[in-house]
């Protein structure tokens, strides 16, 4: 390849440059217009105070300072972290358990279909369905049944500051379980049966087989689902927006809700962009940390 700059490009190669430009045009152009430019615009906005109507003014790092001092933003960070800390380990753990179970039984298809139903259902519809289960008062079937059958009074899942994120986490786990199960199942099916057989002949217990063969062999899949789950927790919005009441409950405020609230309800574009950029930094940081940890924990076949 190093010799290429020395020789003059042939006509064929010269034309290739134009072909490449033509083929890449729509996606690269779209990326510049709808992603790169708005991202730069967001950076500029984050240093300004602007409501879209009056004159904009340069405020330096004030928006970022204001966000870090804002207790609502603190709630947003904490709630988002809480959601991730519940959904990632519990959601992936359950999915792995079910995938391992499914991998060793017949009749996978019917189970796969049933577990997958929530995945193809819109998050809005899912939230509406769960609202009638988790609601307090007369309508929520869960609290009603607990009260009538066992005389227990359960918390107001969707309106209590303490419990709302746990409820959102449960619904999130429920709706993404099927997707994680089929991804794990696909990973499990790449494990050569001879490997398990060899372990079994050596007298390894099922727990030992799982720890020493299954886990290392599917660690790339586990890593991939972890990255996706963490990122989708960071971006949580729709579930809290429909299910809970983040406008009146600080316990349900997520980072994206904060961005939405500041930008589209309060029209404070600068503050909203600052919050959005903090979200971007968090996303990139978490992704890089995970890729760093990958070297230590993920086993790739040679």
């Amino acid at each position, binding site marked *: 390849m190093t010799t290429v700059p020395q020789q003059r490009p042939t006509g064929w190669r010269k034309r290739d440059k134009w072909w490449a430009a033509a083929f890449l045009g729509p996606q690269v152009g779209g990326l510049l217009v709808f*992603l790169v430019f708005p991202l730069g615009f967001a950076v500029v906005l984050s240093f300004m105070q602007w409501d879209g109507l009056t004159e904009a003014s340069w405020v330096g790092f004030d928006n970022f300072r204001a966000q870090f001092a804002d207790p609502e933003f603190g709630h947003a960070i904490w709630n988002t972290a809480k959601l991730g800390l519940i959904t990632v380990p519990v959601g992936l753990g359950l999915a792995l358990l079910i995938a391992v179970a499914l991998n060793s039984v017949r009749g996978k298809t019917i189970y796969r279909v049933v577990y997958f139903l929530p995945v193809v259902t*819109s998050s809005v519809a899912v939230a509406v369905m769960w609202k009638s289960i988790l609601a307090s008062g*007369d309508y929520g079937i869960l609290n009603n049944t607990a009260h*009538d059958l066992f005389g227990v009074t359960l918390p107001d899942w969707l309106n209590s500051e303490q419990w709302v994120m746990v409820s959102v986490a449960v619904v999130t786990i429920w709706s993404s379980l099927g997707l994680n199960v089929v991804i794990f199942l696909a990973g499990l099916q790449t494990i050569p049966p001879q490997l398990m057989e060899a372990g079994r002949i050596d007298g390894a217990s099922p727990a030992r087989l799982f720890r020493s063969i299954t886990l290392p062999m599917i660690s790339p899949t586990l890593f991939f689902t972890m990255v996706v789950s963490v990122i989708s927790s960071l971006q949580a919005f729709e579930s809290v927006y429909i299910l809970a009441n983040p406008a009146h409950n600080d316990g349900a405020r997520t980072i994206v809700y904060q961005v939405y609230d500041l930008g589209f309800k309060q029209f404070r574009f600068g503050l909203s962009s600052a919050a*959005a950029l903090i979200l971007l930094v968090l996303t990139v940081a978490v992704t890089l940390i995970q890729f760093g940890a990958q070297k230590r924990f993920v086993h790739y076949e040679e």
Partner: protein
Amino acid sequence: MTAVAIQRPPRRRVPAGRIVLHTVLILGGLTMLFPFVWMVLTSFKSDQQMLLNPQEVLPEPWRAENYSDALTAAPFARAFWNSFYIAAITVTGTLITSAMAAYAFARIRFRGRGLLFGVFLATQMVPAQVTIVPLYLMMSKLGWVDTHLALIIPAMVNPFAVFLLRQFILAVPAELEDAGRIDGAGHWTIFWRIVLPNIRPGLGALGIIVFLGSWNSFFFPLIFLNTTELFTVPMLIAQFVGQHDLTSYGLVMAANVVTVVPMLIAFLIGQRRIINSLASSGLGGR
């Protein structure tokens, strides 16, 4: 029981483990199904029953009017059409443009290819929510706010799609293209006649992912649409819930059933392909 167990050869003990596995899986499956079943049951209940006996499992009486009431209370047919045609155009545009870009990254040599592809991959890390305020300001300058263009055009820019299709194109045997080139075919002919037909499974999987993503998306419609007639299905149901929330659960659930069932039927018909598409490419339409 112990006597029976001793008589049996040890191999026969395996079904006992299977029964435990199936029990766990069935319990999990029921947890998956319960919210759907409960939604359907609630959709037939009257307001009166919800108020007086909310814990009753079966509707008494079965009130099918909830469905006709829901369908006349909001323009659901319109929302279905909106969601469908937005998703269809988004899928078509995404497939064509991302396959073109993927072809360039896989098969055309040009300087800076590796770098540009790296940038493409890196942009996947930027959440759409980060650029939403500037995007809104741009759309309002363009006059695209409260139009479907604001939902369709930005959604076609999809680095993940380019990445996925590039993988499929790299797997197409180069000899096929060489044969075409000897016959004097240019890049466009090779792309259109040789590469595209050979990556049909990839296009199918991507089409399913993009369709689901568009059909179920809520954040962008929430930001960009104001007029009820332009609403997509998730937007309409969200508005419906806001309007009827505490007064009429049966009605809300009937509306929800109307929006969920067509997707579920489509899913059941194509379940194998849909599940495999999402499993193999992972990201789940987000």
